């Protein structure tokens, strides 16, 4: 379809319809990339033609108005949409197309973790929330599990608040704490890539700031892709930003470029708060 516009840098002064940053595999280590990704809900085409590459140990923000397809895109990356939608195209990870039927989905999700908009801890104790999946995956060494609980809670900046009552129900935590617990739970799996779907949108400003700090810390060890509504948040934490509009990626570039000199008119409007 619009394949001609992508990949080549647009050097004319005319404003383009789309602008997709092309990541050179020699210069950047690419953790994940998509090719011609299309998502259908029934007959409805919710996302088309998404070709994006995500650099390792960087944070990439996905921004756009509600219904622009950014969450759909994110959820397709580790195939959380399999039950509700038809996803076509390729998702390349470690040289494999993980959107193929041959891939063991459960195995893949161990490496591509996800955190959701609303905190969803299990109705278990704080430490069980973190160790449960690890136990299921075959880790039974108690000392090691305890260590993982501590490090992942520390990484998620929750350790100091809960270290004395790890046996307490996770449901007794506040919303912000729950969300950080969920992040701790995700990173305890030692994934390669962490997908975050508006992780701070349901939280108060203080919790939200804490989560941002956590993210900055985490990007040293994980590749992070985050969907957000919050422009400031995107500009503060991310290295790259993709702007979604009506089911298409209109612009993808370094974050500072998107927020200072966007090339597409729609992006300018959105970033400046003219709609959305």
């Amino acid at each position: 379809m619009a394949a001609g516009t992508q990949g080549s840098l647009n050097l004319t002064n005319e404003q383009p319809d789309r602008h997709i940053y092309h990541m050179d595999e020699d210069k950047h280590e690419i953790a994940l990339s998509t090719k011609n990704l299309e998502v259908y809900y029934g007959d409805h085409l919710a996302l088309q033609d998404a070709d994006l590459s995500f650099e390792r140990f960087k944070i990439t923000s996905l921004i756009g108005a509600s219904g622009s397809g950014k969450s759909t895109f994110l959820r397709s990356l580790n195939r959380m949409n399999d039950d509700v939608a038809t996803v076509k195209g390729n998702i390349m990870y470690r040289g494999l197309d993980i959107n193929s039927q041959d891939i063991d989905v459960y195995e893949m999700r161990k490496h591509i973790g996800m955190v959701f908009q609303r905190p969803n801890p299990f109705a278990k104790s704080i430490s069980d929330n973190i160790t449960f999946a690890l136990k299921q995956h075959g880790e039974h060494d108690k000392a090691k599990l305890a260590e993982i609980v501590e490090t992942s809670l520390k990484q998620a900046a929750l350790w100091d608040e809960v270290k004395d009552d790890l046996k307490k129900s996770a449901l007794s935590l506040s919303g912000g704490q729950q969300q950080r617990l969920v992040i701790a739970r995700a990173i305890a799996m030692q994934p390669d890539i962490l997908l975050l779907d508006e992780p701070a949108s349901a939280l108060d400003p203080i919790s939200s700031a804490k989560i941002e700090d956590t993210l900055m810390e985490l990007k040293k060890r994980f590749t992070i892709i985050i969907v957000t509504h919050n422009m400031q948040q995107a500009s503060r934490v991310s290295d790259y930003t993709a702007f979604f509009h009506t089911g298409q990626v209109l612009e993808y570039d370094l974050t500072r470029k998107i927020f200072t000199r966007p090339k597409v008119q729609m992006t300018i409007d959105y970033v400046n708060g003219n709609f959305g």
Partner: protein
Amino acid sequence: MLNPKQSDKLASIILYTIAGLVILILAALVGYILVQGVPHLSWHFLTSSSSAFTAGGGIGVQLFNSFYLLIITMLISFPIALGAGVYLHEYANQKSRLIQLIRTAIEILSSLPSVVVGLFGFLLFVVQFKLGFSILSGAIALTFFNLPLLTRSVEESLRSIPDLQREAGAALGLSRWETVGHIILPAAVPSIVTGVVLSAGRVFGEAAALIYTAGQSAPALDFGDWNPFNTASPLNIMRPAETLAVHIWKVNSEGIMPDAAAVSAGASAVLIIAVLLFNFFARFLSNVLYKRLTATK
């Protein structure tokens, strides 16, 4: 015309009256049964075996049969209902026509008069498979009658657990089965137990499906013999077993013992108390189980 404030007041009064009336009706119902029955209760009544035509018969065997049959029925029907409920809600494609058809079929089965289920069980199990009038035949018939309700309630319980929990499991690389088995089901325990308690109540009170399957005679049991292969053993599942509800039905319809009315009233009260105790026990168990499985205090 009334102004909004007045109509608000009037409505409140009406609502209070209706709610009060309903509670009154239901309380009167339970009270009536208890008041009629409790005076006839005695240790002798609860433990001795029944008598066909003289006064002073008890309901000991029937009481034991009711519980035993309930347990056997649950042992057969609960795993099936659990499996089917899990498949219907966690695995099946909800939009599939076939699944919708199956759901409809199951619900229709649940509104079939139980006498039809009983006769079906009679012709198939008692006569065809030569299981005879036995606890086993009765339990299978009750299973048929119980499955739709139980499956439906398992499914409803699973539905009440938010999808967020399923997503959480999936995002950690847990398979659907691991998520269901370790996260969804434990969280659904209280509401599944409610469903079990409700269907257990129905099993307790069911008579028509059992008349032709578990039979309506209660041979005396030897409570010193717990070998399930002996005929007089309480645990034998191949013996005929009249339950409390069937006994009430029989006493009311054909009973010629002089104290038929008293036996019937006493047995009804016992039945209510038994259901009450069973509910209480099941709730207690579900609380313990829920706490153990979810580590919430």
